[in-house]
């Protein structure tokens, strides 16, 4: 240990310690540091007195203000409920037609509906509602379960294949995997299905394949998709004669559908969105579809 010396630049004494050339000045702790240390400790003590802070054996200090995050949250939820109460009641009680005629309510529907749609529906149906691979387009006049407001709202409430007690159930069987149809039959019926939707009802396939396809269609498909292939909204079976395909309309995609079946899921929203919110969403979706068809 060497002796303390005076540092010529600062005029301070060193501590007299030395480690491989490093020395330290014995500068006292600056008053400013002590002041701020005292201030931060003091403000902490004040916060401890005001808010819940220190634990004991069975409880904790509750603080003079008597605040707790749970009651604070409840309070702020109540406050926000008051703000939305008027339009919520109106939406809940008025009929779809009455809401559509009320321009102030309609503004809320369009604004709030867009938020609801983007926060809850857009991840599957897309921010523009046009769907995507595996998810139906909502911006057209084709509906799996029906497109009138009451039906849309019911679909929102119970979902599709959602596990809800009253869920809409829809299942396309796995004709290939379960050995109901042979590869040849599947190819034929797929070709037939394509011929239904092509404008001139022709495909590159020969007439023999198409007649086999028609035969298979008659036996296996009409019970859900209907004799003319226009689908059936009571079982959520899609229209096969239009040009919209949830899972793709080329021969390979249709064959995949035939082979492994389809069982699309839409969650039920009755537990996550209020009645008013579901009604707003219904009107918003209705609005989207109508905007597109005009």
């Amino acid at each position: 240990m060497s002796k303390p010396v005076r540092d010529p630049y600062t005029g301070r004494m060193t501590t007299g310690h030395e480690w491989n050339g490093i020395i330290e000045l014995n500068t006292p702790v600056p008053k400013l540091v002590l002041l701020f240390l005292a201030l931060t400790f003091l403000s902490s003590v004040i916060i401890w007195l005001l808010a819940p802070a220190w634990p004991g054996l069975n409880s904790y200090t509750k603080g003079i203000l008597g605040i707790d995050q749970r009651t604070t949250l409840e309070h702020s939820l109540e406050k926000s409920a008051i703000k939305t109460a008027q339009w919520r009641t109106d939406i809940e009680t008025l009929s779809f037609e009455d809401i559509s005629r009320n321009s102030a309510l309609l503004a809320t529907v369009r604004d709030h509906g867009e938020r609801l749609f983007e926060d809850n529906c857009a991840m599957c149906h897309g921010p523009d509602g046009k769907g995507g691979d595996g998810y139906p387009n909502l911006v057209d006049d084709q509906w799996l379960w029906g497109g009138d407001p009451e039906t849309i709202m019911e679909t929102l409430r119970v979902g599709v294949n959602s596990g809800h007690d009253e869920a809409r159930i829809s299942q396309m069987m796995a004709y290939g995997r379960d050995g109901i149809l042979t590869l040849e039959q599947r190819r034929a019926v797929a070709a037939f299905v394509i011929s239904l939707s092509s404008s001139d009802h022709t495909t590159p396939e020969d007439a023999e394949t198409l007649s086999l396809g028609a035969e298979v269609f008659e036996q296996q498909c009409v019970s859900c998709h209907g004799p003319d292939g226009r689908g059936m909204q009571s079982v959520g079976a899609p229209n096969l004669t239009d040009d919209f395909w949830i899972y793709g309309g080329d021969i390979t995609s249709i064959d995949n559908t035939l082979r492994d079946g389809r069982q699309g899921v839409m969650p039920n929203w009755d537990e996550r969105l209020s009645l008013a919110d579901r009604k707003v969403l219904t009107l918003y979706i209705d609005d989207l579809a109508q905007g597109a068809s005009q």
Partner: protein
Amino acid sequence: MISQLTKTERETALFLTALLTLSGLTLGLLGRNDLLGYHGALLAVAGMSLTFLLIKDYYKPEPDPDNRAKYYDDPIKVGLVLALVWAVIGMIVGDWVAWLLVFPEATFDAGWASFGRLRPVHTSGVIFGFGGNALIATSFHVMQRTSRARLADNISPWVVVVGFNLFCLMAATGYLMGITASKEYAEPEWYADIFLTIIWVVYLVLYLRTLARREEPHIYVANWYYLSFVIVVAMLHILNNLAIPISLGHAKSYSLFSGVQDAMIQWWYGHNAVAFFLTTGFLGMMYYYLPKRAGRPIFSYRLSIISFWGIVFLYMWAGSHHLHYTALPHWVQTLGMTFSIMLLVPSWASAGNALLTLNGAWGKVRDDATLRFMMVAAVFYGLSTFEGSFMAIRPVNSLSHYTDWTVGHVHSGALGWVAMITFGSIYTLTPWIWRKERMYSNKLIELHFWLALVGTMIYVFAMWNSGIIQGLMWRAYNTDGTLAYSFIDSVAAMKPYYVARAIGGLMFLAGAIVCAYNVWKTAKLPTVTEYTPDKPPLPARGRPSAAAQAAE
């Protein structure tokens, strides 16, 4: 390197590599039906390669006993090179995930390329790979120089360096395969955790044994900081990783804690990892290399002591500020918030102590980019600790939490403070341990400095903007009480900032590559025989000197 080991040491090393091979084989056999098998194989291959290296040089002549009187710098060189390798890997992956946020579809439909798997490769790569190796390497240097004593033995430093890097390798490869304990910054699974625990105990024992050889009765403050890093990280690591594997043949394990207790333990760990991995360890670095480079005495011994105890005591309580407005009881949140506020003063005192140490050396700061790295690091340390205490205040946190502001804050600390103090230390240390007159190119250091500074500024400003915009968008309401923006609106609003962030990160990465190149070229410079910046190790009183021991 192996020629520096005596016959007995080579035999000990062979025993250890055989043990590693055997453990790897056992793990591989137990986990042959699981991803665990790959990590068993990894350890076995590493063990066999090291065994081969040892056998190859086994009959080489024993080292000159005189060398045993000198400092042992070989493990430092290896640790330093590995730190730079991990820096480049970790930052490449970091910038990759930054671009992935700009182009989220760029995952090639591959599991390993998803954000969730790549991000921990980045965080572990830079924190543990880059930061950890830099801490280990510099601590080996600082403990020897400030104790004026050689490392306590010649095997355990290698156990620490090699073992720690095997842990990092298991971590990074595991994430890509989908192995994760799902705890942020503690993602490696149980077997890797046990492995690291063993390595860490060896590290602690080595540190204490080397300190015990010192002649100066006082322990220099840098060692206090490094030791707090080693001890507390051990404690955090063990407690947060307590888990039960589903079987010895599976990588997957389940945490011993559940629900809010699990969250509290995790963020007690997470925040103290910031405190004791990313702060106290690097303060140890700063307290040695900054005064050495500046050639000035530490501004205040007293300030460094109260800062040390302030940081060590107060940080321990602050973790709960990560869980504001959650299921965590309100009183725990209040304590986390208030201790974070009190923590500000010791943090600023450390930054102030560093900056005031530069009094009398500001001319050097102007001319020497290496010292400027360390000066800027101290400034960023002050800025990010202020920001951290500020964000820990509950109402502020209600705006900042879950936003990019957190990401910006972390990087202001990680790039501005941790990486910059490390680069400054690396530029100081490299010529010393490779016995060169100077670094290969001062111009490249200058280039690196500006790339790092501008890159950090772009990054941090981009994230401040995006974070505050996110926070404000999430809480914006219309007059009828409905939300003004959907979540996806806030995502779309982030795009320009994400581009800026990725560019800032790219600059920082470019700087790290320049640094690696510069260090590589420096190691190739002609060695200076007469040159030494150090006082030699002292022959110890009351026990045989290191030289005498080796000659026995």
